[in-house]
């Protein structure tokens, strides 16, 4: 079972590295959006510092949202998804492997580049760690919840709008607590509450989202 997890994860990572341009898309989108704000709004440090947590978190969220399509689309179109569903291994484990691969390819790069963008946006040094840590806890949740939405809409042509409608409401708690944590940390206050909340949401999503995704995939295939 662990082997099946590992093999699928390795396959998805290998596939992603074979088409590198797609790999860089979410990261470039994230950087572009954040760097446009100083140009469009104001380059003054006070304004940017106030906006920074929100801007960075919203950009990260949209960047993940745009990359979700990749999660199951290709497998659905070439029939590999059927083979995964007919695997003797539990579908939940395979779903988890695919979501892990998705996070390693989209979420993790965002976490790693965040300190640089934090500097652009005058995020105080003491809040940069919190920014990274909040994204580290939050982006896996975005991938996990996103997987539920994608598995429901993968068979729908141009399901993008539908996908956003389904999952954005579920993203909002993560966005609020993530951005708020960075905001509060900039003021030098404790962010323990926000981090515990994000951690709890991550545990919840990690245990329930793959189950929901597996069921949703079976529903999609049965049509």
């Amino acid at each position: 079972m662990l082997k099946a997890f590992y093999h699928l994860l390795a396959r998805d990572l290998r596939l992603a590295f074979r088409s590198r341009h797609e790999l860089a898309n979410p990261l470039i989108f994230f950087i572009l959006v954040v760097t446009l704000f100083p140009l469009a709004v104001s380059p003054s440090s006070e304004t940017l510092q106030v906006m920074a947590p929100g801007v960075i978190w919203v950009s990260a969220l949209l960047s993940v949202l745009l990359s979700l399509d990749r999660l199951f689309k290709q497998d659905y179109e070439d029939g590999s998804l059927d083979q995964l569903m007919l695997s003797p291994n539990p579908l939940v484990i395979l779903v988890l492997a695919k979501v892990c691969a998705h996070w390693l390819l989209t979420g993790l790069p965002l976490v790693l580049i965040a300190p640089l963008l934090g500097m652009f946006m005058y995020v105080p040094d003491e809040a940069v760690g919190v920014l990274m840590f909040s994204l580290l806890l939050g982006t896996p949740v975005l991938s996990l919840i996103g997987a539920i939405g994608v598995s429901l809409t993968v068979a729908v042509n141009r399901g993008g709008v539908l996908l956003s409608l389904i999952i954005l409401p579920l993203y909002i708690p993560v966005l609020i607590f993530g951005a708020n944590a960075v905001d509060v940390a900039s003021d030098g206050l404790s962010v323990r509450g926000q981090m515990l909340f994000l951690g709890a949401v991550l545990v919840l999503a990690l245990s329930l989202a793959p189950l929901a995704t597996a069921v949703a995939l079976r529903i999609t295939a049965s049509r």
Partner: protein
Amino acid sequence: MSNSSTTAPMLETRSLECVRDDRLLFSDLTIKLAAGEVLQIEGANGSGKTSLLRILCGLRLADEGEVLWQGEEVADVREDYYANMIYIGHLPCIKGDLTTMENIRSLLDTRSRSASDDEIEQALAKVGLAGFDDVVSKALSSGQRRRILLAFLQLARAKLWIMDEPLTALDVQGVALVESMLMEHRETGGSAIFTTHHGMQLPCEMSSVTLGVKC
């Protein structure tokens, strides 16, 4: 007499019914497939052949009736059923960015089967893809991609093959290859269910079920 699992047919359906978009495709369909039996599903386009195959392998739910694997309902023995059944749909399930070898390995991995490089090379030679193991699959023709699936089919060692149009894109030698593979499979006690619009000539008894007789 009790219907113990040793005497039960390999795959059995009981009064299966399938409705699609308010259209009744088939109803009260009963199939019994014993070990070593080959069954062809016939029917016009849109008569529900693919739907039937997807119901048989559990991807689609039947509107009525049940599918039994060795006497037990498929949903209850899913793991055992899937370990012994292989479904080849009309989609290629081949990744263009992976090489032939990697494609076969990843297909085998989803079934928790492993094969040595030698075994894979032998299987590739048998389907006429010798020397193509390091070629990226998007450089192959669609017939060659189908042949990768045939190599996978041999390595997966499943008892039951469910194949949707297995002859698609294959040339004359390819068709002969599928026929000989089916015969070999049958001799080792395996069963197969398939659909095809091409003539398949098997030198053995072959039962058939025709869907949508009205057309």
